[in-house]
């Protein structure tokens, strides 16, 4: 059962990691005025972190399904 298993713990760890990345002070590191490949640094970084987070959650959740 995933609830008690490794996958559940991994998801909680991912949550903690996400909460850290989406908040001060990490956020302030991303908040720069110079562009990132022509895009606003903060905007681009938030989406990248977001996408990575979703990918990690997907990997954990779907792996646990096996």
């Amino acid at each position: 059962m995933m609830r008690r298993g490794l996958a559940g713990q991994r998801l909680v760890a991912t949550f903690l990691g996400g909460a850290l990345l989406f908040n001060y002070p990490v956020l302030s590191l991303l908040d720069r005025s110079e562009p990132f490949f022509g895009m606003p640094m903060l905007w681009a970084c938030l989406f990248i972190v977001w996408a990575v987070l979703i990918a990690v959650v997907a990997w954990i959740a779907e792996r646990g399904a096996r």
Partner: protein
Amino acid sequence: MLSGTVVVAASFAYLLVLFAVAWYGDRRAEQGRSIIANPWTYAMSLAVYCTAWTYFGSVGRAASGGVWFLPIYLGPTLAMSLSWVVLLKMIRISRTYRITSIADFIASRYGKSHLLGGLVTIIAVVGMVPYIALQLKAISSGYSVLTGSDDSGVFPFAAASWFNDGTLYVALTLALFTVLFGARHLDAAERHEGMVAAIAFESVVKLLAFLVIGGFVTWSVYEGFDDIFTRAFADPELAALLSLKTASSAGYGGWFALTLLAMLSVIFLPRQFQVTVVENVNEQHLRRATWLFPGYLLLINIFVLPIALGGLLYFGRGTVDPDTFVLSLPLAHGERALALLAFVGGFSAATGMVIVETIAVSTMVCNDLVMPLLLGIERFKRSNHPDLTGLLLGIRRGAIVVVLLLGYLYFRLAGEAYALVSIGLISFAAVAQFAPAMLGGMYWRGGTREGALAGLLAGFVVWAYTLMLPSVAKSGWLDRAFLDYGLFGLEYLRPEQLFGLGGLDSISHALFWSLTANIACYVIVSLARVPTGQEATQATLFVDVFSRGQDTPATFWRGSAQIQDLQPLVARFLGAERARRMFESYARERGVARIDDLKPDAGLVQFAETQLAGAIGSASARVMVSSVVQEEPLGLDEVMDILDEASQVRAYSHELEEKSQALEAATAELRAANERLKELDRLKDDFMSSVTHELRTPLTSIRAFSEMLLDDPEIDLKDRTRFLGIIVSETERLTRLVNQVLDMAKIESGHAEWHNTDIDMRELVGHAVETTEQLFRDRGAVLELDLPDRAPHLRADRDRLLQVMLNLISNAAKFVPGDTGVVRVRLTCETGQLRVDVTDNGPGIAPEQLGVIFEKFRQGGDQYSRPQGTGLGLPISRQIVEHFGGRLWVQSRPGEGATFSFVLPLPPEAGDGPDRAMT
């Protein structure tokens, strides 16, 4: 601009499609081939989170606050990664106890309290009706933008009076849809397959529409992200939107508060509870939704900032409401079809939210507000009307229509006012008040009814005072004075700077104070008294839902019930036919043929109550069931006794298991020890018989010759001398044997004496060879000696080592063939050890005997070729070598002779003191 007819036609055509999808979904469900029973549909239905407020409002927020629209979607992403901890438990609890709404959840958890259910319902209605109004407003202002009838969009669909206001008809159509697919019949599980299918469909439509518009703005109006952002960077006012600090004054605290708020909302919004928990078909679907739903949120937000910046760049500030950029940008570029598509997307976002929210809220209103009031009327409770399903459905449908009309009314009254525009986050803050009671109820046993009541009430009042009333005042319906100068002119009561707390935006401020008040009251009041029996029962059922398992009904009940009373009761609310089927299937589960044979026990009462709970709410079900069964309420002590008993039984069985495991291990150990003892015993017997056998042979010959000498004094001297010689040699053999047995026993028991001295192995080997020279001469064999020039000394017992050498050499001499025998003795120095090899060219040793010859009394060779010997020499030699830390072994192939070798470790160079004993 588009003509109003086209837009209205498109809207209603879309609604027709929605009806079709829902109808199809329902039909498939009836056929048992559900189209929503897959994780994709489930994840899509969760996307009802994205309302018109997302669809239009995100762009508006981005236009004024840059990336500040994002926390509303980052929060749900974080919350979903915890879904296996929180949501799964909610789903399991709700399924097990037939809970169909948040109000019911909270009411049921805290002792099935009507009061709590009612309070939660009121909070939900107060929080959600304006939200529904906001969706209607989005539709109407979308319409006015498309048709260009009224840019300010106050009274859209260009209606002069309510009866020709298109929004009203949209609202009524939605009410019709919701009644048809949300309250067509009573379902104990309260699931609506067609509705969920329609919602999933709407989610796909709004996502596709938004992506198309986003793509259009990004790549058709501008030349990709680069282009938009380069232009935005060039405009200092727009560039300010791209940074967190310059875009909003709320700061990181505000960012955190918004994220938290969104996290709580995605779990506790009534519509989210409805699709996530109530409409969940299979718990496993949650697994995919965990990432698919956040993925959806990410996709629908990619183009928000580009559209907002694109709109601001194109229209400039202040000319066009940024909330309508999604529509006005395509329109401004003459893309009317695209604009219509954008409108349909927004329309689907709005209708999806309205439908689900209305169902969720109407379930609460019916089960937790109206039913308790009806049950409060004695006459109703006593009435013996056999079927109340019609009444129940009527209430449910009435509630749907009323909620929708309330939404419409609020929209007409509020219009463009601040109270409507800001309602999204205000609603979120309202449902966040459910969090302490819900989460506390799921993980903490100590929460009590009064605690939950106090927490919710405090949170709600603070929320109303710090968020709701200010928004009302800002709309101009209330004197603003209390906003600026505080209630009764008390400065510290200013609702947006409560107790002088400044520096926070209004949402963070309200969230902080309301949640603080909520949690504090919940915890403090809960801790004021011990829970009652009913509360403790429910707490256990909720907190331990996973460990209790689904098939063990709660047995916290004492009393008597009659199936003749229970079945009609369930039938009153669920219909006679349905009730009969339910009880029949329950009887089958119990292995009973007929309903009447069912034992009227706690399980049956629990079953009936659970079925009723699905239809009328757990608190009302409790009241109804207790009206027909005679029961004695259980006190806390009794509940605790039952719990203790159960946990004690569990503990005992656990202990028992452990003990039996330990016992098994001990038995295995004993068995092994016994085997070892038996083996030793066998060895001892073998040893004894071997020894006696070896003793008997010389004794027999001694006795025989002695008797001959005794019997016949006439024997001549020659024979007499020969006989006496035999007797002496046999006696010597006996002595040797006894000595060796004693030796062996001493070494084995560790009582042997060792006299260690420095030994030169060259000298020792040489001595041994000299001693045995006669033996070789007798056999006609040759002994070759191969010694190194010098060998390091080692410390050991010289006599013992000599014994080993003599044993090996004499063994070799015994086995070599008469005239051609060669025995080679070789001493070599290896690193850290000395090695001695004694090689012969005898018959060799059969492989199966290689291990045996070191055992006591086991001699090499077969019975006939076996030379004289005690069979103890090799075992003793091995014992001696091993005593000095060395090793004795043999290598041999039959026909090629044998090599007996042993190594002895050299003492380490350091610490090689003269007095060092080896023992």
